[in-house]
Every structure is written in structure tokens, then in C-alpha cells.
């Protein structure tokens, strides 16, 4: 019975257009659209938005119905056309609402802006944040240098967000904004609380200066890695490329390498377990991302059908990973 209905409504589509049936993944009908086959997915989403004003384009996710043997449905990409997916009149597309979305740059800005404000609070306002504890008249040199390094690091991150990074996606679910801010702002407070504590015991000045010096070098390496990654794709190019040059010749996620070593040096400079915990948690997350990226690149660049074979490289942390 369903087949007959689809064929019947297909005959009613306008000349040169095809009818697309949008359904929820459970099969409930949402809307029917008459569209030209040459329409881009991006424009299709705009049309859908015209019908369903609640779902702006970045919230929309369309998938093709599962074929036999498939476990994951194919999602429609904005840059492709409807005809690229072999869609005929009467075809069904499944719709998923991705929930309220927020821009990548917006999330990056707020998650990095918090630490710029939160960390200095403990340095400048000990009388309020360490109630009942008499603070020494002057901060140790390392505490001041650490404040400078921390502020420089997060300023760099914000600058990169607007001047360097080319994001692979435009938006992410709004819950991520909340979750990421809790992480960054929370750890900023946690690290700062102990490093700027009235009872802080500074390690030797040489240890601090050398460690922070190396950390700065790591930050510059990290910046260079980010620039290389941003320039990987020429404007309009899609798809993954093999990163090359500088440390990328040896390590897939060299940017994470520099970042981790930077925080290790910071931890040595301030000699605080709190900074060490922050470093470890960041390391664990970056390692997870690095493994995913590395295996994705190895899967794509398999050396078959004229594709390059992904070279043998460390994933993130020679000689461990």
C-alpha cells in the first residue's frame, strides 16, 4: 500500500521537479517538498526551514534510509546536490533534529575567555578567595610568571579562533558550550587556587624559568602546527589531506604534542599537582582525539586505487603513543 501511495504522489510532482518525502526516523511523515534534482543540500535545508520554522538549517540532519547490511545511515552533506545521492521522485529522507546549535567560534571564544578572567582572580584578590589566610606581601616570581604564561596562552587561543583555525563544522550542540565552559573555567579556578595560594611554596627560580622558557617554545611550535593545519585545504577543497612539514612529518597530531609538552613544562615550573591533574586530563582527551584522527587518516589513505598510503608516523606522543 505504501508503494502505491509513493508512485501516485510521484505522478503529481511538477514538471522537472521531484517529490521528496521527509520522515522522522520512526517513519512518521513530516513534510513533502517539490524540488529540482540539481538543488544543493544546503538550499534544500533552507527550503525545509521555510516550511518548519523551528528547525534552522544547522539543526537539520537528513539521512538516506538504511540499505541492506548498513548499520549507519548516510548523512547528506551541505556541499553536495540531491542528485548526487541518486534520489528519485518519491524518495524518502529521514530527518533528525540536532537540537539548538551554537557556532564553533562562539564556543571557543567563551571557553577560552573564562580562564583569562578566572585565573587572575586568585592572584589579585587573595583576601576574598582565601578567607582568613594572611597572604604574603609579595608574590613569588614564579607565581607572576605563571600568571603571564597562562594569560598569554589563552589570549593566543582566542586569537587563533578568529585568525587561524578553519573549522570542519559550523556549529555544535549548545550543551557543549555549557560542558566545555565548566571544564575550562573549573580547571582555571582549580589550578589558580593552588598556584596563587598564600601558603604556596615556590620551587627554585632556575627550574621555573627554564621550564617556562621551554613551555613558550612549545606554544610557538603549537602555533606553527595550527597554521600548517589551517592551510592544508585550499579554499573550496573538501576532504582530508595528509599533514606535512615541521613535526607533522613524524607525528600525526603534532599540535597536540606541543600542547601537552607545554603543559608538562608549566607543571614543572609551578610544581603543583593541581597543574599536573589538569595536564593529565587534557592529555587523555587529546590522546583519544589523536587516535581517532590517526586511524581515520590511515583508513582513507590506504594506498589503493591511486590514493597515497599514509606514512608511518607517531600518533601524538613519541615514544609512547
Amino acid at each position, binding site marked *: 500500500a505504501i508503494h502505491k501511495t509513493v508512485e501516485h504522489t510521484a505522478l503529481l510532482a511538477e514538471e522537472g521537479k521531484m517529490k521528496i518525502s521527509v520522515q522522522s526516523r520512526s517513519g512518521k511523515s513530516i513534510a513533502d517538498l517539490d524540488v529540482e534534482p540539481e538543488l544543493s543540500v544546503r538550499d534544500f535545508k533552507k527550503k525545509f526551514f521555510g516550511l518548519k520554522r523551528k528547525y534552522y538549517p544547522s539543526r537539520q540532519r537528513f539521512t538516506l534510509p538504511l540499505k541492506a547490511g548498513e548499520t549507519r545511515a548516510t548523512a547528506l552533506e551541505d556541499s553536495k546536490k540531491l542528485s548526487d545521492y541518486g534520489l528519485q521522485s518519491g524518495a524518502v529522507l529521514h530527518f533528525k533534529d540536532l537540537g539548538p546549535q551554537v557556532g564553533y567560534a562562539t564556543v571557543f571564544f567563551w571557553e577560552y575567555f573564562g580562564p583569562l578572567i578566572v585565573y587572575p582572580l586568585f592572584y589579585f584578590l587573595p583576601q576574598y578567595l582565601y578567607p582568613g589566610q594572611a597572604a604574603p606581601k609579595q608574590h613569588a616570581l614564579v607565581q607572576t610568571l605563571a600568571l603571564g604564561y597562562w594569560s598569554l596562552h589563552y589570549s593566543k587561543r582566542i586569537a587563533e579562533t578568529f585568525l587561524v583555525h578553519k573549522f570542519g563544522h559550523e556549529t555544535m550542540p549548545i550543551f557543549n558550550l555549557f560542558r566545555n565552559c565548566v571544564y575550562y573555567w573549573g580547571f582555571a579556578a582549580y589550578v589558580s587556587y*593552588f598556584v596563587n595560594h598564600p601558603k604556596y611554596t615556590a620551587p627554585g627560580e632556575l627550574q621555573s624559568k627554564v621550564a617556562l622558557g621551554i613551555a613558550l617554545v612549545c606554544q610557538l611550535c603549537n602555533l606553527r602546527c595550527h597554521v600548517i593545519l589551517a592551510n592544508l585545504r585550499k579554499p573550496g577543497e573538501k576532504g582530508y589531506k595528509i599533514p606535512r612539514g615541521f613535526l607533522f612529518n613524524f607525528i600525526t597530531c603534532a599540535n597536540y604534542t606541543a600542547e601537552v609538552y607545554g603543559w608538562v613544562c608549566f607543571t614543572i615550573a609551578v610544581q603543583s599537582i593541581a597543574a599536573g591533574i589538569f595536564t593529565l586530563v587534557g592529555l587523555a582527551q587529546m590522546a583519544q582525539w589523536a587516535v581517532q584522527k590517526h586511524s581515520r587518516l590511515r583508513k582513507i589513505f590506504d594506498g589503493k586505487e591511486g590514493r597515497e598510503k599514509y606514512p608511518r608516523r607517531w600518533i601524538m606522543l613519541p615514544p609512547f603513543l
Partner: protein
Amino acid sequence: LQSTDMGNPYLVLYNTVLCGAWGYVLYLTVQTYFLEKGSTRDVYKAVELPLKAAQTAAILEVVHSAVGLVRSPVFITAMQVASRLWVLWGIIVPVPGPTTSGAVVLGSVGGVTLQLNLVSLLVAWCLSEVVRYSFFALKELLGTVPYPSLWLRYSSFILLYPIGVASELTMAYLALPTIKKTGMWNLPMPNAFNWGFDYHWACLLVCATYLPGLPQLYGYMLTQRKKQLGGGAAKPKAKQA
């Protein structure tokens, strides 16, 4: 491999043994508190050893998950086991006085005083664990689960989760004044590693995470219940078709 084949014999053994252990703790609780009319302190004396053994053994479940022996997500399993271990080894064992004899009184219903105390905690824990372990034991042994066990697994949480969580928070509530006063497990500043630990604050933080945790877990179990029980008796029959 048909769905009616036995799974891993080790898992059959593990789940059966733990089901028995928690059943034993429940038996001791009921006997001491309800039959012999003992106090909650008496209950603790009776169950202390098997309770510690049964609850600590749950660490194995994190291992099972990590090595892929069972399909549950490692992080969630680890969080659940960690929270139980914290209540037992971090609250009750170090502060046995207030926790095993104290109570939070909820009110009276028909002459019976309703309280959150060690016994409400043990009853909630024992019943959930017996239901859970028997479910997994039967699943490993038979390949499918008899409907009564399925029903219990996806229905008992409705009452047991709130009672269990409320009892766990009660234990913390009873122990916190002592934890604060004695400064137990505190690592004060100054020290060479510029790090401090205030156990009282850490406990408060853990209690705070219960607040978003329970609604999420509860909601998840409710959707699982709809999925597993929504088809009613039709589900087990469909497998044989």
C-alpha cells in the same frame, strides 16, 4: 551461536555468586532488624563482612567492561562502582558511629516511622543487586531472560533508585559533621607539591553530582523500560520465530 546458547561460564559464576552474596546480606539485615528487632548498629555488626566483600567485588565489573567481556560502557560502570565504594569505604567504614546508628526521619504512616538509615540503604542495595545479578546470571546461562526477571530488572528501579540515592545521601549527611571536625584524610598546604585536599569539600562535591545524576539515570532507565517491556509478552516469542 543461537540466542539460547549459554554465554561465558565465568560470567554465570560471577553473577550467581554475587547474587547469593547480596541475598545473604539481605537475609542478615531482615533477620537482625525485623525478626530479632535489633538496632541498625546490630545490623552493621552482622552484615559488615559480607557487605564489604560483595560491594568491593564490583570492581571486577569495571575490569569486565574494560577488557570487553561485557558490553557496558567503561566510564559509566566505573562511575557507578566508584560511587558505591565511596559510600561504603569513604563514609560508613571511616565514620561508623553516626552512619550506622543515625537516621533521617521522613514521617509516620499508619503508626510506622519511615526513616532513611542504614537499613533503608541495605534493603535498596540488596534488592537492586539481587535483581541485577540474577538477570545477568540467567541471561548468560540461558541466552534469554524469563519475563519475570526482565520485568523486575526494568521495574524495580522505579522505587529502589530514589530510596537508594536518598539513603546514600543520608549516610553522607550523617557523617559530614564528623569528617569536617576531625579533618580526616585532609592534605593541608603548605607542601612541596602545592596541592591540598579537603575531604569534607570533596564529599560535598560528590553529593552535588548526585543531583543531575539521578534524573539522567532514571530517565535513561525509563526509556530502556519502554523499549524492553513495551512489546509486552510478544518479545520473547518473536525470538523463536
